[in-house]
């Protein structure tokens, strides 16, 4: 892979399996992507393609009975696996990797004041490497961090940031809560923010504002972001690079503009065709995402693919470089590229 700068977050060949009553299910199968410093990388795919598992795997929070079977995740060149061990995880989650959850209505603890919740991670992790407040006595430290929270809340454009600290989550609207959570993700000045469909639960106008805010804040603060979504429209608005996932596998990855203008993998093309703004004739994709318990042999997309060639049903396509800085995992594309 031809990454110009060394990747900040480097996911290589990551596979995750979960033990179920009916056998072992392969949730992620050889996922690859690189997040360059200061950029926003979109991960796009249908529900059930393993996007959320990917985030959990990076954070070392795979649920019970799931495990990473293969591959590696590295942050700044240091492998993150072993994150299951509390001590390592402690220095990564919150401190180096911020997280923005999907549903702002459910993610905040209903019986604690917002200020206390925003303070929590900072209290344990400090506010970045140049944070001088960590050695201060408790009261001073608390005051310093509270000021930082107010500053962050102002940055996410929450009205009355000083008053917000003493309020409870149910006193905020959905959009406001998402702003609170963005502030929380940035609180410890992490290098990377993982966002798990942070706009899905919001109405369209709020979505737009939040996306603008995210773009602005990451640029200003030099934070890189991995943004998971099922919506190509959001990717177009926000991201620099994108990875398309299908049934736990990376099918295509590359700069947003190229992938969206000239999608090479059939799945990417069909997914883009589902989007009302991009396609004159609105299409769906026939069939459904296969069960991870019994994934189809060969390329996992082959049962739904209109352009199957015999190779697709026998071997698994590798993610290989294609035109214009892209990588594609498709036998047909490989065959066309190398005549």
């Amino acid at each position, binding site marked *: 892979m031809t990454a110009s700068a060394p990747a900040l977050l480097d996911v290589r060949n990551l596979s995750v399996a979960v033990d179920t009553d009916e056998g072992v299910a392969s949730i992620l199968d050889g996922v690859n992507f690189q997040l360059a410093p200061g950029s926003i990388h979109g991960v796009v795919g249908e529900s059930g393609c393993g996007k959320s598992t990917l*985030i959990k795997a990076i954070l070392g929070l795979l649920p019970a009975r799931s495990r990473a079977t293969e591959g590696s995740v590295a942050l700044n060149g240091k492998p993150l696996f072993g994150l299951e061990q509390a001590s390592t995880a402690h220095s990564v989650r919150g401190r180096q990797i911020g997280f923005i959850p999907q549903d702002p209505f459910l993610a905040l603890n209903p019986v604690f004041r917002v200020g206390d919740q925003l303070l929590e991670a900072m209290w344990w*992790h400090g506010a970045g490497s140049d944070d001088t407040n960590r050695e201060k006595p408790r009261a001073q430290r608390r005051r310093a961090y509270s000021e930082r929270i107010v500053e962050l809340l102002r940055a996410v454009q929450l009205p009355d940031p000083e008053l917000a600290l003493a309020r409870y989550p149910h006193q905020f609207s959905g959009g406001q809560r998402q702003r609170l959570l963005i502030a929380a993700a940035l609180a410890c000045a992490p290098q990377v923010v993982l966002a798990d469909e942070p706009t899905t639960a919001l109405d369209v106008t709020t979505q737009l504002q939040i996306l603008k805010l995210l773009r602005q804040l990451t640029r200003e603060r030099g934070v890189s972001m991995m943004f998971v979504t099922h919506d190509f429209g959001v990717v177009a608005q926000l991201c620099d690079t994108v990875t398309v996932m299908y049934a736990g596998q990376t099918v295509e990855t590359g700069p947003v503009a190229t992938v969206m203008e000239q999608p090479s993998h059939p799945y990417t093309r069909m997914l883009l065709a589902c989007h009302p703004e991009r396609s004159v004739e609105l299409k769906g994709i026939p069939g459904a995402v296969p069960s991870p318990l019994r994934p189809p042999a060969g390329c996992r997309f082959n049962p739904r693919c209109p352009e199957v060639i015999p190779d697709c049903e026998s071997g698994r396509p590798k993610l290989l470089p294609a035109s214009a800085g892209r990588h594609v995992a498709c036998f047909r594309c490989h065959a066309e590229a190398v005549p």
Partner: protein
Amino acid sequence: MGRLLLRRLLLALPALLGLLVLTFILLRVVPSDPSTALAGENATPEQIEAIRKAYGFDQPLWRQFVVYIGQVATGDLGNSIFTEQPVIRDIARRLPATIELVLMALIFATCVGIPLGVLAAVHHNSAFDHAVRVITVGGLAIAPFWFAIILQLIFSMDLNWLPLRGRLPVQVQPPEFITGLYMPDSLLSGRLDLFLQSAHHMILPAFTLSLGSLASITRFTRAGVLETLQKDFVSYERAAGYPDRRIIWVYVLRNSVVATVTQIGLLFGALIAGAVAIETIFDWPGIGSYAVQAILTSDYKAILAVTLVVGVIYALVNLVVDIVHALLDPRVAEEN
């Protein structure tokens, strides 16, 4: 909050009045004439008739009730037939003993039950969880009065470690009356020796009394924590890098405890009921043993008064529970 309190108080009043009517009727509908009981076993019909007149039992029931309510409203609950003292004074003297006993049992049950429940939920389906389950199911199945006797057999009679009965040794003067609760009173008056003695006397009764509540609190907490652990905010808190211990013991616990607290009102009823048996066994001079004595001697003014007082306490406890609930969960306070 103020409005919530007022509304609860107003709601409690008719229930208490109803309780009085109910007890009054129950005591009379039952085919037994209090005058017969009052007169004793060898009374002549004339004596019974005289008592009936003297106590107003010959009046229609409703008039008797009106008279009684009038007395209650002026704070006069009548005289006990057994102790020949004003019932209100008997109760006032005995109430602190029961309150101290019940409070100690509740504190013990809470301090042990909540951590047990949390640990059982965090390590659920482990050997520890199963052990906790055995203890809680057993704790609810054991007859407290029997268990008290067995513990007396072992710790008081056989090993001689713990006193058999009472709040203090017979020859010892109780501490100066401040709250009426011996343990805080002896501390407040600087009598560490008395504190230790009364604590020593408290161990067995409070422990046996607490068993049922301990089991309930453990179960509620375990179920509550298990439910809370499924919530999205817990996975968010993990992902956001809160330390695991803080998540469990602060963020999850506070959410689960809300449900447990609302159950303490119910537990209080169970504790008062338990106190009836435990006080009898340990000769504990509280209103539980007073109630048994009143009932066994058909001391009907005392029975009515105990019922009323227990009803009032019950209503107050539920009020406190509502307040605590509102304090723990900001959403409750706003709904009201």
